[in-house]
């Protein structure tokens, strides 16, 4: 099924290392713009630290806002990497090969972005480390019943796991770069980084084993992370619309939805920015498009079920909450945008082959999805906190302040900048993986299924 473009290994190296050894014209402009956005965001945060969290738009009863929304969003995005690499690797989906690294790297940076949101959110960030058992002399341990203790452990585990994952996959390519890098320091640094990789069969074998093991090990974390994040809300009996048993799977599939969409975006960008159309072929987009149809539809099913659960109770506060989400300003139009962008526009489009095969259209639709998925989190968190409870005296609302908006923007710039800088120093498309793909390219047809002719590498 994959289109064949025969390239020599030399060509592959040249193409894929161009971004590292050379410097695309647009690179500096893009980075400096992103750095500017980040600086503005950091200044806004400095202002918040100095003046107090009061500079955010929060108040009674809506005490969580844009930061937590953004936290959940980035955790969601982070699920792309493992989804693509681990799952597709274990399920031997060939088209994954050129995409894996970009996805994994995005995972790492979005996780960092997510964690930073917690720092932005709390009232006394300089005490944030108290959620860790850092100091028994205080005579107190942190409260292991609190999701805010589960979160950091889960996310950190995930961050460490996926970092290893990236690094292991990077080693052979680092060696290639080492061999080609010029200058005084670069070769030395790369030679240290690639841990003396020489490409001996034993090294290949170990690297492959590590890769497969890590895939298997990271998977449970991948599931647990977003379950736990969902429990930040699901265990809160005090908030109407949060206390729902379906949240864990609902959040995970939502995360995959936004994550995989984000990967599709990255793919399009890679094609345009680094001219990788030899490696990311329309049928790669086609494949991820198919995957997205499944993911999106499953997600929508959960979304639907969650609403049914809620409405089925017929509790006045629950009904009032849903009315708020769907009918009251500003939520009604946010809700409309959310529905259209996260499902009703993209999914029907993906049904068409020529949409799936067009990087431009895939890019646009997946951008829509991520706008929608950000709003989804917003619409879960804020209206619930607006407290449509019998105590109408305390009903409230929320508008993010300019400070919050700047800081949220900063997180997006941060992830983008991270990707750019990474791409400058390491190949964004894994050389060895692509080459390996070429080796296995010869395929035979069995019934209607097409499988590689050669045997997989196995320990």
């Amino acid at each position, binding site marked *: 099924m994959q289109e064949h473009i025969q390239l020599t290994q030399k060509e592959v190296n040249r193409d894929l290392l161009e971004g590292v050894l050379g410097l695309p014209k647009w690179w500096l402009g893009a980075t400096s713009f992103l750095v500017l956005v980040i*600086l503005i965001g950091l200044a806004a945060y400095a202002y918040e630290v*100095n003046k107090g969290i009061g500079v955010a738009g929060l108040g009674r009863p809506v005490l969580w806002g844009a930061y937590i929304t953004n936290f959940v969003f980035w955790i969601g995005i982070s699920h792309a990497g493992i989804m693509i690499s681990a799952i597709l690797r274990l399920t031997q989906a060939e088209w994954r090969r050129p995409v894996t690294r970009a996805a994994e790297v995005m995972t790492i940076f979005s996780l960092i972005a997510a964690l930073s949101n917690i720092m932005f959110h709390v009232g006394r960030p*300089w005490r944030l480390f108290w959620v860790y058992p850092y100091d028994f002399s205080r005579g107190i341990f942190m409260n292991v019943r609190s999701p805010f203790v589960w979160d950091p452990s889960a996310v950190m585990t995930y961050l460490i796991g996926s970092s290893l994952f990236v690094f292991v996959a990077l080693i052979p390519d680092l060696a290639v770069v080492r061999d080609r890098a010029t200058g005084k320091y670069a070769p030395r640094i790369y030679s240290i980084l690639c841990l003396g990789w020489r490409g001996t069969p034993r090294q290949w074998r170990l690297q492959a084993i590590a890769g497969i093991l890590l895939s298997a090990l990271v998977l449970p974390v991948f599931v647990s992370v977003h379950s736990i994040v969902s429990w930040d809300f699901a265990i809160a009996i005090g908030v109407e619309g949060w206390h729902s048993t379906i949240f864990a799977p609902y959040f995970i599939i939502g995360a995959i939805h936004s994550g995989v969409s984000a990967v599709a975006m990255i793919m399009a960008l890679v094609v345009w920015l680094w001219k990788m159309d030899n490696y990311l072929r329309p049928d790669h987009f086609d494949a991820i498009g198919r995957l997205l149809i499944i993911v999106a539809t499953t997600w929508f099913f959960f979304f639907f079920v969650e609403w049914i659960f809620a409405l089925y109770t017929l509790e006045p506060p629950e009904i009032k909450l849903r009315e708020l989400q769907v009918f009251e300003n500003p939520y009604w139009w946010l809700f409309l945008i959310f529905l259209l962008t996260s499902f009703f526009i993209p999914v029907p489009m993906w049904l068409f082959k020529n949409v799936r095969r067009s990087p431009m259209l895939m890019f646009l639709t997946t951008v829509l999805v991520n706008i929608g998925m950000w709003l989804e989190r917003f619409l879960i968190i804020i209206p619930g906190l607006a407290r449509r409870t*019998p105590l109408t*005296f305390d*009903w409230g609302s929320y508008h993010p302040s300019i400070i919050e908006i700047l800081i949220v923007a900063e997180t997006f710039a941060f992830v983008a900048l991270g990707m750019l800088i990474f791409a400058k120093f390491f190949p964004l498309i894994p050389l060895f993986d692509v080459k390996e793909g070429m080796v296995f390219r010869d395929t035979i047809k069995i019934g209607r299924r097409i499988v590689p002719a050669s045997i997989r590498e196995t320990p």
Partner: protein
Amino acid sequence: MALTRRQFLTLAGGSAAGAILFQACGVPEDELLVQAPVEMPEDLVTGRDNWYATLCRQCPTSEGIVVRVMEGRAKKVEGNVDYPINQGKHSARCEAGLQALYHPDRIRGPLVRVGERGANRFREISWEDAISRLSFQLQNISDQGRQSSVVLATDPIGAHLGMVVERFVSAYGARHMTYEPLERTTLRTAMRQVFAQDAIPDLDIANAATVLSFGADFLNTWVSPVRYGRGYGAFRDTENERGTLIHVDSRFSMSGANADKWVYVNPGMEGILALSIAQVIIADGLADADAAAALTANLDINAYAPETVASRTGVSADKIRAIAHDFAEHQPALAFGGGSAAAHTNGLFNLAAIYSLNYLVGSVNSEGGIIFNPAPPIDGIPVAKSNTAFSEWHRLADEMSRGEVQMIMVRGADPVYGLPDAVNFENAAYDVPFIVSFSDVMDDTTAIADLVLPQHNYLEDWDSDIPDPAPGYQTLGFQQPVVRPFHEPRGENLGTRGFADVLLTVAQGLDLELDLPGETYREILQDGARQLYESGGGSVRAASFNAFWNGVLQRGGWWDTSARSNSAAPTPPPLLDAAEPAFSAGEFHLMPFESTGIGDGKGAALPWMQATPDPLSTAVWRTWVEINHRVAEERGISEGDVIRIESQYGRIEALAFPSPAVPPNTVCVPVGQGHASGGRYAERRGANLYSILSPNIDLNTGALAWASTKVNIEKTGEWIRLPKFENTVTEFPRDEHQHVIKLTALGGGDEH
């Protein structure tokens, strides 16, 4: 290329880190200290505290309080359990005495005006200098033999201070005028007329089965709210028979909100409604025959049958009958009125008719009814009286503008702020050569004064008080300093001084003969105590006078539960025929009211009072106008719209608060804001409602008919968020008939 890039990146990173670091240093350093994560002050011994008994002077009621003092600082105010009036309870306003004591803008020493009048520029001078200036002026005036052109204006003061002031003015030949923005003159006159009582009687709400109140927001701010609140608590006690409260009022006040039945009555028609209720009680044979006969001696009560007055009063005939029967059939029954009911051109008639109802059900000077108060325990120690009606202030303003007033001394009174613009008092004040203020915070009168002699806060000073109304027996409260004067460290010649002692010093300087039993105010009080000691009765018994004196100070006063009024219920004075109320021109009735926190305006200087939500609107910090929510809808007025309220005499602006409880023909606005000066918390916030009141008076008492103003309203188009504690509810929950629904979900108990 590479070089510049690297430079650029380091630069970027560096500056970012720098920004954070720099800002982080801006964090208050106490936050960077790592405090003990387990120990809190709550768990630690912080030294001993003492509770001293004294009197609360946050409002005219003057109740007994105890003040917690640690390390020479007052920390907390609570009710004095022993004190007969409030028996340990207190109001919101009471607590804020601490903020008056430690007010950041308290005047720290005597001031003399330097700039133009009204320019609000003063220079600090020594007490010596200040007092000699005052004495000099007084001397001058008496040399010209114009003593009567000196006016000493105070809040209504009684007991020993009342005596000192009376002796002073009479010895010098000056005039003493009392000032209350919302005066009680009419109430006192009514008491004299209906019950032949000089002192306001006590209301035995606790033991009443039915309470019928007219216009008086007695649970919130009227006369003795804490005492009435305490009575109300007992009255509501379901352990015994639970009483029924019927509140007749042109405004849905806090008392109305707590009533079992709130009955709207057209403004000024309270008296006619009362007559109609009397008619039903008499006609249905529920009344005490003799009382009925005496009352109806010179009027045809049947002219007030419910049907005939229903349309005028706005209360349906059936309702009137129901009220009458509720009232007469469930005794003891208590009827009283005041507030807006008394603040009409026919106020005295209203109150007379209302209070007379008590005769019909035998509730005069009997349990669960009106309880007469005895004479003061010591001769020559008066009960606080407001002896000056608004009409006299109006006259004074004219004299002032004719230059007939040489000097005004104000203490505890702010007439420049409180008198309606129609009186033109402020301008007239510019024609008074010498104005002296004893206030310890700036207020609108002090701001145009020539000399400011800041007095002690009541927590720093000696005083006594005869509660008015008293609890039904002789009571004399004693006020002692609970802390050293806050500004004492500034030395003998600066800081604040007690008002009475300043008067005494001045009298000495002018060698006026006051023949008071003491050199200092403290000695005078002690002499009063000695008289009580020698009388031998009462709450404090002691072997020696010293022991007695300490006992009195410890318990916050002296009282004698056996010393009650011996005057029996008089024969009811005949009722008079109805007097119709008169109003100024306008579309809406204007119902001024005192909000819980700032009351008549005294509380405006205190942040706690500004921030105390009004019970009904929960609004704070500003002036708002309560308007019927349907009227508001018709006129496209929504909460926060700035509304121009215009009477014949002026205009103010207030923020709209649409409410389902406001009568459609009425707008209600709180008094007490809009001070030109008054410290950082009061200055230039909200609007001064007094300024636009019509100068209508009660024709019999000369009291200001502050509920007789009508106004027009219009949107200015401006919008300001109305600060209030209730969060913004987009809409009142409505049922299918578009009526505001009952929020039974809250009742919770309904499921139980």
